[in-house]
């Protein structure tokens, strides 16, 4: 057993991090958020989308013979973790999962979205839509960078592809993990430098303990998400999802708290992390479904 990142995986993560921080750094994020507030403006950056395609982000798991990068789920999880760190917008997961079946998805020429339970993200800006979106109504939504449509309740809707749902849940957990790691780092950085009462606030135990709690949640979620990427086991994915959702939502909240009044402003990026984390908790059945699956596992699984 060697449950650690290999050299190639570390290099991949570093490569994706550099690409995203260079191409979608803080200024780009804020510019996109501002643009999203202007009615009629397109938010999805098609140029960036094609650059992601060229870098292999969408074709990461396609076999090399099919023009892909030939990597597996662990590598995809590392890439989506990086996307979560910078709050990369767009229907990334649906497009990634469509690579190889929808022409142009792998290269980022075609933007693909998919209907989830009750919601669909980026419906108007996507070229191809998977699933039934009849009766979709636009929903005013907190996060300027995640346009949403609400889908009518449809009890006779055919059951969604479970493998697809599993992958959406796992890659969502990876994004949550990246966001949680980023808000933890942001809080620690602020606590080291921001002075109150004549000393850095990070010297106060109350602030230290908030930050320590954030790291503990990140590390536990990381172990769970990486393990789920290796096993692709549905119960492992459900566990990873619960812990990653918790790490992202509570991490953003605690980061906001460490920032005090500044954290409550629009200029701070923290609310963008919190809002996106909230939206991600609604994907693929959310926490309730994960908890029920994990409860079932206790009575049907091995003792």
């Amino acid at each position, binding site marked *: 057993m060697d449950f650690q990142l290999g050299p190639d995986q570390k290099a991949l993560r570093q490569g994706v991090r550099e690409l995203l921080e260079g191409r979608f750094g803080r200024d780009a994020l804020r510019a996109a958020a501002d643009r999203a507030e202007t009615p009629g403006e397109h938010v999805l950056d098609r140029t960036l989308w094609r650059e992601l395609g060229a870098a292999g982000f969408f074709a990461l798991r396609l076999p090399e013979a099919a023009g892909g990068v030939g990597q597996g789920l662990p590598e995809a999880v590392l890439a989506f973790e990086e996307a979560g760190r910078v709050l990369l917008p767009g229907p990334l997961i649906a497009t990634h999962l469509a690579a190889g079946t929808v022409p142009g998805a792998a290269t980022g020429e075609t933007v693909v979205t998919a209907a989830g339970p009750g919601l669909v993200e980026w419906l108007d800006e996507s070229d191809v839509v998977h699933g039934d979106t009849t009766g979709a109504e636009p929903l005013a939504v907190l996060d300027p960078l995640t346009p949403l449509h609400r889908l009518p309740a449809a009890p006779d809707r055919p059951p969604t592809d479970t493998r697809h749902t599993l992958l959406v849940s796992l890659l969502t957990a990876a994004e949550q993990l990246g966001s949680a790691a980023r808000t933890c780092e942001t809080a620690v950085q602020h606590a080291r430098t921001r002075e109150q009462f004549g000393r850095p606030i990070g010297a106060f135990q109350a602030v230290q303990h908030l930050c320590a709690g954030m790291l503990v949640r990140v590390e536990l979620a990381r172990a769970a998400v990486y393990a789920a990427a290796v096993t692709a086991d549905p119960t492992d994915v459900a566990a990873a999802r619960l812990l990653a959702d918790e790490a992202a939502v509570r991490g953003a909240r605690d980061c906001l708290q460490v920032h005090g009044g500044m954290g409550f402003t629009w200029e701070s990026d923290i609310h963008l992390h919190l809002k996106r984390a909230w939206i991600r908790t609604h994907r693929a059945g959310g926490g309730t479904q994960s908890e029920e699956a*994990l409860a079932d596992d*206790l009575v049907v699984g091995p003792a």
Partner: protein
Amino acid sequence: MDLTYTPEEEEFRARLRAWLAGALPALPPRPSPGDWPARRAYDLGWQRRLYDAGYAGLHWPVDAGGQGATPTQHLIYLEETEKAGAPYVGANFVGLLHAGPTIASEGDAGQRARWLPPVLRGEEVWCQGFSEPGAGSDLAALRTRAWRDGDDYVVSGSKIWTSHAEVADWCELLVRTDPDAPRHRGITWLAMPMDAPGITVRPLRTLAGSTEFAEVFLDEVRVPVTHRVGAENDGWRVTMVTLSYERGTAFVGEVVACRRVLAEVAREARKNGRWDDAVLRRRLGRLNAEFRALWRLTQWNVGEAQRTGGVPGVGGSVFKLRYSHARQELYDAAAEVLGPESLDPGREWTLDRLSSLSYTIAAGTSQIQRNIVAERILGLPRGR
């Protein structure tokens, strides 16, 4: 990232399983928790069996008499022994997990030859003389004094929360040898024989009703200078070696145990109808996520230790923080499933619920662990 075990690791697991299947039915019945002499005999008997079968000191280095197992083999050992219901390390806890590894790492040849084999063979029991009434989590505040008198140290003071003190042969003792030095610098690590004149052991009753630990009073106890491990006044560094073991792999088997208990709690809930309560059912589901993730974190830390060749260091604080709270939540959920029956102290889960209250305190409180995480891992400024 690989979670599959190598053929050699699987072979090790199969051999261990087969041996456990033969060894466990031959065990005598478990003694009652209050009967310390019987507990000592039971735990030492199990240790002797492990020794004879070549499993004693599995993760100790070979030159210290151990088996030199890899961290992964040690993980498999802890997982399989717990799954098979083998006895807990019990009275041998301090000798095998604290004092032994410390002597193996910091002791001289004579000390290693004198103290290590009896621990491995199940002949001697150690206890830990670290905490004092005024120095618990703030260990460096300890005041028990030792001064040189010829070839001996003369020790006076008192220790508290000393597990197994009633039946221990040796105590890993921290004493202050230079009261004028900065508080981390004047401490020395001694091996004190528990039958020396001047030692009084007074058992302490826990909230669970049992006597798990004791106060130890030291009145001019003479300890030979040759019993000092490491240099005089260098005991703090020696102690940090010990603590890295304590916070590292000490809880691995317990995560396996918690996963087993959680499955039993779920089965009980199915039996008594509480499973139909969606809130409770989902709470059990969330605990399943918790303990699965803690197991993955264990595997991650073992993978790291295996690569670096080191012992798990302060990273253990991250694990201990989450685990100790999850364990308490598990037994709270068990009580919810049992209903009023959970108030009966004769129920196993009730006793375990009570004992779980110590996990957020022992080996450094959660508050101290958070300070360690904040200052040593996250690099926040030292505070108070």
